[in-house]
């Protein structure tokens, strides 16, 4: 039995592949078998890991020669596995996160009765029996001639419902249900309920009046607890140390009540989370680059030249062009572009570089601080949603600073060993070896410019003898002919061996274990 099942699987799948290759009608069967093969290949990675552990743990346990290397292998394997699977240090995927919002867990069933909206109407049935869209399926029911919706309806849910049936009456009902299933006026746009996430959400920092308005919706303890939790979390204070502020720093309008700079502790103090728009508004604290007039450009150039060497003609042209055109960037970005362009077309002194790049450095430092505040104030919804190989994560470090250089080094060391082996073993012992040596010389030279250099003087009538042409000739004629012969032989061998395997004549792939 232990051998019969694998034999049967091999035979059936093998014949499926053969039949599907020659019969277009059976192509889907081959595809199905290949998909199963791919799934098993994925599982094989787990088996491979298990096998690696087994082999090396045994080596360590038996204290075999080189057991220390096995220890290093296991350590590296476990470390990579843990940091990769655990996604330690990987930031969550931005698209999966709800920036600017805080959450409190609340099951759909725990939503208070006051959050059930009702409109008269009938949920239409589709001819093909298609059920309601998944985004609303759990929240909507038909009861006593009315359509009930539990929770607050989101715009994407409204869209899904409208798309469900293209009838004017239905769209009107959906419109009415959407209006009925909205939070009370003072909370509109601030509060939401996400059924898939079983969570109540609040945008920004909750005020006392918002809290009262939410609490007024129900006296249920579960509801009150969720609101209190949301209130606490949305008012969390985040501090980030910022030793300086941009000259034109101003708190964006949308953050006026929640963000301040504490000059004593030199900290940016934020209450609640930041949305992506608020983050971008906070980042934008530097003046835009306006085109300069001819006089201003001359002053700019003189000032720059006074810090070091004069600009050459090419540099002067670049400066004139870049400073006169409207650029969508800030002054720092513009000066950085200018500095790089000037460096490409001539030199600049250190002082000139510093003068050009200083505003950009400031902007980058400020953006980094804003991002720090943005992430520190954010309540992570899905800590595992990020990429395991995100830059800066421990897995990335292992890959970038251990795996990558080590594998590259292993491969590069071949050059040294091949050179040593060639010196000791590549001998012209007989005619075959001489032929091989001659071919090797031609190919070695032909794969570099040396081949061209050595025989470029040959006239066109003897172009075939040029080393680069000889290389191509050897590869395309002798090599191809030899390889084709070998491949045809191998193909015939594979066909006969495969047939033996499929028919169960050759069972060596099952190993030597008994029944």
């Amino acid at each position, binding site marked *: 039995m232990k051998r019969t099942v694998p034999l049967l699987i091999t035979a059936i799948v093998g014949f499926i592949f053969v039949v599907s*290759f020659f019969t277009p009608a059976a*192509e889907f069967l*081959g*595809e199905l078998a*290949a*998909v199963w*093969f*791919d799934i098993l*290949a*994925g599982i*094989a*990675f787990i088996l491979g890991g298990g096998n690696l552990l087994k082999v090396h743990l045994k080596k360590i346990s038996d204290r075999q020669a080189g057991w220390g290397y096995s220890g290093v292998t296991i350590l590296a394997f476990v470390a990579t596995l843990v940091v990769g699977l655990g996604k330690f240090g990987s930031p969550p*995927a931005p*698209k999966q996160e709800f920036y600017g919002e805080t959450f409190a867990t609340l099951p759909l069933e725990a939503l208070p009765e006051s959050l059930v909206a009702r409109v008269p109407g009938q949920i239409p049935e589709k001819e093909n029996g298609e059920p309601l869209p998944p985004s609303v399926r759990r929240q909507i029911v038909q009861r006593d001639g009315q359509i009930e919706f539990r929770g607050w309806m989101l715009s994407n849910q409204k869209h899904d419902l409208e798309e469900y049936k293209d009838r004017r009456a239905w769209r009107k009902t959906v419109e009415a249900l959407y209006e009925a299933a909205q939070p009370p006026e003072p909370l509109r746009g601030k509060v939401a309920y996400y059924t898939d996430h079983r969570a109540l959400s609040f945008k920004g920092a909750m005020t006392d009046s918002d809290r009262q308005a939410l609490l007024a919706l129900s006296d249920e303890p579960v509801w009150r607890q969720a609101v209190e939790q949301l209130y606490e979390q949305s008012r969390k204070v985040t501090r980030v140390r910022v030793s300086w502020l941009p000259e034109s720093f101003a708190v964006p309008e949308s953050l006026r009540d929640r963000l301040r700079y504490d000059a004593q502790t030199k900290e940016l103090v934020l209450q609640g989370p930041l949305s992506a728009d608020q983050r971008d508004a906070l980042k934008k604290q530097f003046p835009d680059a306006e085109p300069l007039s001819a006089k201003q450009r001359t002053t700019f150039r003189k000032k720059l030249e006074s810090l070091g060497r004069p600009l050459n003609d090419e540099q002067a042209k670049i400066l004139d062009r870049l400073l006169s055109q409207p650029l969508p960037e800030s002054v720092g970005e513009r000066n950085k572009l200018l500095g790089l362009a000037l460096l490409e077309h001539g030199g600049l002194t250190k002082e000139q570089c510093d003068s050009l790049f200083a505003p950009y450095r400031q902007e980058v430092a400020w953006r980094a601080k804003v991002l720090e505040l943005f992430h520190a104030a954010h309540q992570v919804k899905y800590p595992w*949603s990020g*990429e395991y*190989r995100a830059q800066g994560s421990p897995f990335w470090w292992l*890959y970038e600073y251990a*795996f*990558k*250089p080590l*594998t*590259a080094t*292993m*491969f*590069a060391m071949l*050059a*040294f060993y*091949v*050179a*040593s082996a*060639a*010196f*000791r*073993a*590549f*001998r*012209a*012992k007989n005619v075959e070896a001489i032929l091989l*040596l001659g071919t*090797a*010389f031609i190919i*070695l*030279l032909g*794969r*570099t*410019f*040396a081949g*061209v250099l050595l025989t470029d003087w040959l006239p066109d009538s003897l172009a075939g003898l040029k080393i*680069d042409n000889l290389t*191509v000739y050897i*590869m*395309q004629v002798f*090599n*191809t002919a030899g*390889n*084709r012969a070998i*491949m045809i032989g191998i193909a015939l061998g594979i066909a006969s061996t495969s047939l033996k395997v499929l028919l169960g004549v050759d069972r060596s792939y099952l190993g030597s274990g008994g029944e």
Partner: protein
Amino acid sequence: MYEFLKNLDRRWVFLMMLLAVAVPILFRAQFPERPTGLARAVFDEIEKLPAGSRVLLAFDFDPASEGELGPMATMVVRHCCEKKLKMYFIALWPVGPQMIDDVIHKVILSDFPELVYGEDYVNLGFKPGNEGVIKVIVTDWKQLYTTDDRGTNIDQIPMCRGIENIQSMDLVINVSAGYPGTKEWVQYAATPYPDKIRIVAGCTGVQAPLLYPYIPQQLPGLLGAIKGAAEYEELVVQKYDRKKGRQPAAKYQEAKRRMGPQLVAHLLMIGLIVLGNVVFFMERSRRP
């Protein structure tokens, strides 16, 4: 001298190889390249595609062979960007996605920031199964690729809509360092669908001789090792930089730069083989 050569410590050979590689790198030795027919064929296959054509880029290599294949991967992507082709990246090697990320950062994000992810290029990541993956996606793409590398549903990616299988691609470009690689792409994609799937490839030096039998019917173009990359680089740089009066950026001259150490190392190898044979013949003549 004979005795010294006969008993030459291999560390001297290692030292010579180190110098042969290091000196041209330090002195930035570069030599001109003359593109051969195979490199020109790869260039022409990409060049003749109209803007908006779909190109599948299969990067089947790892950091071990990055030195040999990285420059050609960079150049292929740049060529596709210049031609405004739609790029679909996939990998059959577990660390292939990192190679794809590297090239995307090096070329697309830094030099073609106007290209939009999901509209102009998409990274579909790694799938296990070697040639099994190729076998499935030549007939039904969505059996295996339901999301991209970031986990986005493939139906939500504009450039993935309407693609049923690899036959929808106008060209497949494979950069490969071994198994699974070009041989598998030729056997399982190009050979069963000769009129629908065209493949060009770049491969390591040791693989190239094994792929020549497929040229030109199943494999119209092939870039063999760093030499092939340097030739192809020359063609792309000539068309998209020099003709426009621009100096190519250093990252687009990487293969050419790496040909310097290769030249000196090859000359050293020839010298060592000759020297080894001198010792061999002297030894034989001294034998009674």
